[in-house]
């Protein structure tokens, strides 16, 4: 079982990403690419999350934010079996994934010692955690600086927890269905991170062993169709206007969801995850 943590700022779509992953088994009948992989939810928490995807996301609602209130022990573990079919082989991954509340990511900026944050970070950087998926979502003025400060602090913590050589970090731009991002999804390191988050990328490449760092583009909602790249999302009001909901559940086709998990788990690049 590969242990993976998902971190990122509030509203970056961490739980929605996992809910879409958990719900996938029902949708695989619809996508013609489905033969590349199959996903199975292994425990009750994951099955409940899949139900939330069906009862809330598909119905035009958005999931509640994950909160720090109950501490690390109150957070569920989501457990998946993913089978990826390559040309001649089938790779099976068993994943135990936990997503952390966005506050934890954001509090890293201050650098102040906080018992709750320390509890989360210690758990995130335990020896049996294979990798972290970091979801970033904004690029408006000042965000690059904010992300780079937080990730500088995070990489220092990786070193102080003696994980510098053996923790894989997949950094993904989430919600890539947005028109400004969608064309850059094929080469995210160059077309998304170099363009929108250069300081963040510079910090990460300077501080993390290149063999342990990869950049990805993820779109949980996807676009309407291959030849109609309008985002399959509708923005609605919410705190900071960050809420978005699924536009057309009937054509829901996420993009780039499996590749980062495949690499975090196996250390190998996945052939196709479109």
């Amino acid at each position, binding site marked *: 079982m590969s242990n993976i943590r998902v971190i990122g700022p509030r509203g970056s779509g961490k739980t929605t990403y996992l809910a879409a992953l958990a719900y996938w088994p029902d949708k695989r009948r619809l996508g013609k690419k489905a033969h590349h992989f199959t996903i199975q939810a292994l425990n009750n928490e994951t099955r409940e999350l899949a139900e939330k995807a069906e*009862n809330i996301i*598909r119905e035009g*609602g958005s999931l*509640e934010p994950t909160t720090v209130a109950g501490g690390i022990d109150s957070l569920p573990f989501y457990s998946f079996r993913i089978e990826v079919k390559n040309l001649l082989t089938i790779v099976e991954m068993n994943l135990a994934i936990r997503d952390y509340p966005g506050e934890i990511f954001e509090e890293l900026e201050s650098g102040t010692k906080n018992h709750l944050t320390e509890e989360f970070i210690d758990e995130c950087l335990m020896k049996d955690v294979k990798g972290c998926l970091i979801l970033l979502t904004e690029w408006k003025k000042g965000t690059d600086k904010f992300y780079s400060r937080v990730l500088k602090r995070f990489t220092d913590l990786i070193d102080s927890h003696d994980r510098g050589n053996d923790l894989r970090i997949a950094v993904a731009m989430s919600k890539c269905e947005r028109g400004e991002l969608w064309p850059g999804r094929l080469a995210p390191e160059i077309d998304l991170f170099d363009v929108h988050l250069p300081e963040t990328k510079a910090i990460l490449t300077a501080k993390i062993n290149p063999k342990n760092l990869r950049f990805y583009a993820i779109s949980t909602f996807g676009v309407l169709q291959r030849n109609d790249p309008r985002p399959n999302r509708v923005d609605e*009001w919410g705190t900071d206007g960050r*809420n978005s909901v699924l536009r057309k559940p009937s054509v829901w086709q996420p993009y780039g969801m499996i590749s980062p998990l495949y690499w975090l788990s196996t250390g190998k690049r996945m052939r196709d995850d479109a």
Partner: protein
Amino acid sequence: MGIIYIGDRATGKTHLAMELANPKSHYVKVCHPDYEYLKALLYDDSVGETRATDAEKEVDARHLDIQVKLPTGFKQVTVDCIDTPGEIWRKTWQVDNPGKWKNFLETVRKSEGILLILPPYRELLNQGVNTEEFMTQQQWSNRFNRWVEFFRQDCPKARHIVVCINKADLFCEINQEALKLAYNPNGAQFNWHQRNSYVLQKYFSSIQAQLEQINKSISGLSVRCFITTIYNRSLLELPWIYLGAFLAK
């Protein structure tokens, strides 16, 4: 876990809670307590309306076992449904009863869902309705400022705030609106986003800026707007189906 009904006097909070238990249900079924039991407790046959909730008890809690039919099937929602007397929103009551007001605020802060029940405003009403009993739109909008203040100051961690203009039978063609807004787990005309946008624009436009203020001040929150009436089951059930999708086990 708790869901609390709040609102001014005579907005119909108790009647909404009681009618939810009516066995003639669509997708929300109250398994316990029984409708007849609730009616005997809350309804005054002699005057043909629910009894005013006792202001001596700042919260009137009732444990409800509810089944909600969601796209993934029937789900159980176990809630403490808490009704509040409208009097407690009067400043004089709060000053005279500081201990009870404090208890009430603690209950609100612990609640997972808050249903704010508003009366319709005068300009919205159908012809023939006695408008004297209702606030003007300006008064209604001003009164809502105090709700904004309440949510921002006293409910900073609220997970779900649902705002309902009740007594929809007095201000719209409820069957037509229900046709548009009705929920159907097998595919409805509108999803939650579309229902909210429709109701917001049609009935809540004068307080849209205030609703946005609530949204902005409480992290991760999306206030949802509904119209409700005890005379149309689809409209009555909608807020509960919405909350049920989040709170169901």
